[in-house]
């Protein structure tokens, strides 16, 4: 998610579609559509389905969390055309849910202020018990203090990345940090140096990554590995190594305060100088590839989605695109390349989720940030479904994919 520092800039956005001008030619869009078709799911009147996160529940059912604090179940999502969608309002009154997953009959939601799990006990389709799984970090009401939650990883851990208070400061405990929740309920401070995450998830091998957005200490949007103990590059959150309220928890996790990076230096120099500095695996050329890297998924469909197995599909919120990322590990660090993949979504893509037939659900919002295709209004979320043209034919990369 893009951070913009001043109110005047925010005002500018209201009329500034230039922020996310669509430069693709109609021929390019047509070519992409030949290989990966977008099906837009109609959102019923009265449902403000602004992007938060998605969880595939199986049997055509998707759980969708929203920035306004709701969780909906959406049924019959794989019908084409999607003529019988059914929305069930499972939960409301939550705080900007940017992570949703399911485990042991509970729906887990990452809210700004806490990780919560909820359940419908009386069978009326709505959650009626909400348990605080944990809230080891702080919030102060600043709009920028987002919290993005992962799915449970191969160890059963859930990871949460916490935006700074704005671009430069960490004014509440652990802003600019990553936490892990272990299966036995412990919260472990895991990485420092985070600026403004747009999404979190694993690569195809189950290694946790996140996207961090362009701004101070991040010359361009990046995709970074969240390796426990590592520093991701922005020094504002390092103060919590020394704060009486947080230092014990950090010390118990075995983390040591890294050297601060030098302003005006270069990432590769700082990565060499500071052993615990984690450089980005990918830096998305800004603004050619995008301006707000957000959520992503690894292609674990076993070929159902085409020839890009084990690669990542990374959303961009301001360009309303899905990018493709190839990763490799060299000398203990990930590196790789990014490619345009698919554009033309209705709103700023924030997250993506696989259905078990290999369809990719993409879901977005343009509220507060300019986005291509978006409608600068209240309920501008959109939902799309990208499918291969034919399951029996192996998909070939579209002409834009390698450009």
């Amino acid at each position, binding site marked *: 998610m893009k951070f913009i520092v001043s109110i005047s800039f925010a005002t500018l956005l209201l009329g500034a579609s230039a922020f996310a001008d669509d430069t693709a030619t109609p021929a390019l869009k047509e070519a992409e559509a030949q290989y990966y078709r977008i099906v837009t799911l109609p959102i019923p009147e009265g449902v403000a389905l602004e992007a938060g996160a998605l969880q595939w529940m199986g049997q055509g059912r998707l759980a969708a969390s929203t920035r306004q604090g709701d969780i909906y179940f959406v049924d019959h999502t794989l019908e084409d055309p999607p003529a019988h969608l059914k929305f069930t309002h499972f939960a409301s009154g939550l705080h900007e849910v940017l992570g949703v997953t399911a485990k042991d009959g509970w729906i887990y939601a990452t809210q700004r202020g806490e990780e919560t799990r909820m359940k419908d006990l009386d069978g009326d389709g*709505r959650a009626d018990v*909400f348990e*605080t799984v944990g809230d080891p970090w702080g919030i102060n*009401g600043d709009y920028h203090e987002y919290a993005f939650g992962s799915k449970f990883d191969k160890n059963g851990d859930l990871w949460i990345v916490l935006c700074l208070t704005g671009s430069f400061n960490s004014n509440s405990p652990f802003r600019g940090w990553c936490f892990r929740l272990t299966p036995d309920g412990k919260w472990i401070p895991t990485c420092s140096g985070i600026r403004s995450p747009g999404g979190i998830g694993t690569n195809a091998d189950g290694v946790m990554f996140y996207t961090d957005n362009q701004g101070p200490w991040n010359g361009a949007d990046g995709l970074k590995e969240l390796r426990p103990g590592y520093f991701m590059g922005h020094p504002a959150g390092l103060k919590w190594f020394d704060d009486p309220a947080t230092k014990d928890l950090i010390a118990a996790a075995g983390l040591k305060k890294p050297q601060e990076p030098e302003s005006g230096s270069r990432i590769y120099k700082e990565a060499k100088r500071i052993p615990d500095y984690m450089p980005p695996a990918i830096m998305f050329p800004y603004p050619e590839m995008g301006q707000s890297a957000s959520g992503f998924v690894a292609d674990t469909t076993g070929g159902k989605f085409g020839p890009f197995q084990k690669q990542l599909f990374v959303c961009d919120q301001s360009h309303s695109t899905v990018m493709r990322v190839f990763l490799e590990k060299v000398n203990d660090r990930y590196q790789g390349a990014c490619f345009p993949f698919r554009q033309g979504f209705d709103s700023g893509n924030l997250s993506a989720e696989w259905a078990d037939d290999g369809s990719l659900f993409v879901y977005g919002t343009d509220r507060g940030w300019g986005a291509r295709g978006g409608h600068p209004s209240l309920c501008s979320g959109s939902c799309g479904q990208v499918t291969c043209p034919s399951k029996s034919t192996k998909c070939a990369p579209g002409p834009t994919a390698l450009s």
Partner: protein
Amino acid sequence: MTWRLALIWQGAFIDAARHRTGRGQGFEKPLGSNVVPGPPGPAFAVLDSESSAWPKETGRAAGWQFRGYSLDGQRRPTFRYSWNDLTVEDYPVAVPGETDPGFHRTVTVHAEKPVEHLFFRAAVGKRIKETDGVFAVDETLKLKFPGAKPIIRGSEDKAELLVPLTFTGHEAKFVEDITW
């Protein structure tokens, strides 16, 4: 974080529009009227004696933790929070009324071992006066505690209203009726 009734008011709840049309920056005050702040600091304390000062320490560092909530058939919340080994269920139900709208609040404290000298601080004001079991706080709030025996005491230049809690087994319970 403080697990207490921080503000109560009547009428409209809040205008969230600013948080749903832009990035959500800014803070909103209650939209209604008759806004009354609750006592600051922790709502519960163990006091060595009835003259011991009410502690100021609260939040995570003092052992407070939010635990979540459940919704009843009308989707009214019972909040759960804990203070060290105590777990609290707090069920405030809004009571409509032309002349005296308010809250009927049921608070249940659970503990493995009964806790002695546990108090709930219901109010802090300049002046607290009891008339037939109704405690008037600064002529703003009227509080009733059916079945309990609250204590009015002076504290520095203010008056405090404390409700002593008595355990029956693993549970201590009280009801607070708030009108204003």
